[in-house]
């Protein structure tokens, strides 16, 4: 009796083993396939970068065959659509630099002070309320900021200084600065909170006040994080488009005076896109050359921030 059962069992067992093996192989294939799909999803970011570099370089290449790099960098006029066309990127750069300087003059001091205050001084309740509020400030669409700059800030500035033109870099810069404050303050504050309490205790134990401890111990200790917050702010200011397109005007103007209207690199691209430029014309290609300049700058900022973080990584 037991022998038959055993043989029966053996036959059953062998068939189920082979189906088990088959199932296992199928499962492994499916697992591998899923992993490949997920890998492709991750690869999209690399493809995006490649796409951006490709298109910018491709169109700029055509552009630079007609305009020398020397001219591009040194010409003091930007009139790409005239018969006597000039392509001096310096004109657009001046608008970008001036507006960014105004913005950073507001965002960096205010952002840093707010970060120190929230990290070292403010009671828990105030922090809990202030942090989400600041996040909301950073979430307002930039077109709304642009509207605000043109139709609220400029009239107020004109009340103080009636000669201020309706389009000017100052209101744009001020509103941009306000928009950038949350970026600077939240990253700086995170960096400061990461400084261990033992360093602060060491300072307090020496009889220092909160202000002395914050300025002499915490800020130096959080230096790399704070610096990378500043660099992020710079990058954000340079890349901002709508606030400037709406309230600084789109007239290219080589100036470093914030009380004048001027076009930035970004506003110029918008202006061209709004118009009707035939694909393949030199006017069309200028926006890619401008975009390439912009990309190179923000890339430089990213790399600088990355190197700073690596070099000054404090080992606690």
């Amino acid at each position, binding site marked *: 009796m037991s022998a038959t059962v055993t043989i029966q069992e053996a036959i059953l067992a062998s068939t189920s083993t082979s189906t088990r093996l088959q199932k296992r192989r199928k499962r492994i294939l499916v697992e591998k396939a899923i992993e490949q799909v997920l890998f492709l999803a991750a690869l999209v970011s690399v493809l995006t970068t490649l796409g951006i570099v490709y298109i910018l370089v491709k169109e700029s290449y055509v552009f630079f065959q007609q305009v020398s790099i020397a001219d591009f960098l040194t010409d003091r006029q930007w009139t790409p659509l005239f018969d006597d066309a000039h392509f001096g990127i310096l004109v657009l750069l001046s608008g970008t630099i001036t507006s960014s300087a105004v913005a950073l003059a507001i965002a960096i001091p205010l952002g840093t002070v707010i970060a120190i205050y929230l990290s070292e001084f403010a009671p828990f309740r105030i922090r809990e309320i202030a942090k989400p509020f600041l996040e909301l400030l950073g979430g307002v669409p930039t077109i709304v900021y642009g509207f605000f700059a043109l139709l609220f800030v400029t009239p107020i500035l004109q009340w103080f200084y009636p000669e201020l033109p309706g389009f000017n870099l100052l209101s744009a810069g001020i509103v941009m600065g306000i928009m950038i404050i949350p970026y600077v303050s939240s990253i700086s504050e995170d960096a400061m909170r990461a400084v261990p309490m033992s360093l602060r205790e060491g300072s307090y134990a020496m*009889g220092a006040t909160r202000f002395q401890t914050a300025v002499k111990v915490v800020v130096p200790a959080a230096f790399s994080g704070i610096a990378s917050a500043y660099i992020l702010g710079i990058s954000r200011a340079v890349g901002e488009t709508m606030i400037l397109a709406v309230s600084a005007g789109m007239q290219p103007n080589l100036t470093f005076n914030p009380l004048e209207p001027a076009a930035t690199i970004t506003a110029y691209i918008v202006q061209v896109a709004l118009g009707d430029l035939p694909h393949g014309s030199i006017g069309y290609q200028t926006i890619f050359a401008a975009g390439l300049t912009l990309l190179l700058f923000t890339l430089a900022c990213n790399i600088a921030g990355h190197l700073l973080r690596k070099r000054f990584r404090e080992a606690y």
Partner: protein
Amino acid sequence: MNAVLETLEKPAAAQKVLKAEARGLDFHYGAFHALKSIGMPIYEKHVTALIGPSGCGKSTYLRCFNRMHDLYPGNRYGGEIRLMPDNTNLLAPEVDPIEVRMRISMVFQKPNPFPKTIFENVAYGLRVRGERSRRVIAEKVEEALVGAAIWNEVKDRLNDLAFNLSGGQQQRICIARALATDPEILLFDEPTSALDPIATASIEELIHELKDRVTILIVTHNMQQAARVSDYTAYMYLGEMIEFGETDQIFLKPARKETEDYITGRFG
């Protein structure tokens, strides 16, 4: 027990002057009653050690002396700590904690040098006290580094970052930093528990030398260390001061059974 006996080789305690005294000291972390009616003298230019098992409140007690608990919300002091010769109650609300910390310095368990040069680390306390003369600062920094027995090692690299030193050296910089301001009491919160045995031995030797200059209160979870360096020892358990006395007496002839149990390793 024999090992403890062998480490006792100190001369009889010299003339004792009261530097500070805790009277009926209570402390609450929120609702938790951490210190219960502590009473204990601290004698000038002597080393007093606080021993006891984990959680007995010795660090809590130490941090009352420089009002460290004020930094965190929810804490409450009760009773007094009187500082001589002016008989000020350090715990009184009208007494400014910053003023207390200018008279009493602390060395922490894990070395915590600032992210600055060695020179600036030691000079920090002086600058906070408004010292501006470069000559005076340089003199006092050197004096402190000599007192911390590290001057020869660092005198040629005072402008290097303190982070680059070894653990034991960093701790000595922290000690120099605490010494530079001529404190009336120097508090040590388990100063060698993060260090290797060789660094530990040299810190212990340093403490021994320092006591001629400054009153020292040291918390340690290492009984042998207490026996080695201190003149007076206090045994604490669960927030209470169980016994206080000269170190020899505590270790050789403890008056309370709880003390004896701890010393002989029956628990803890």
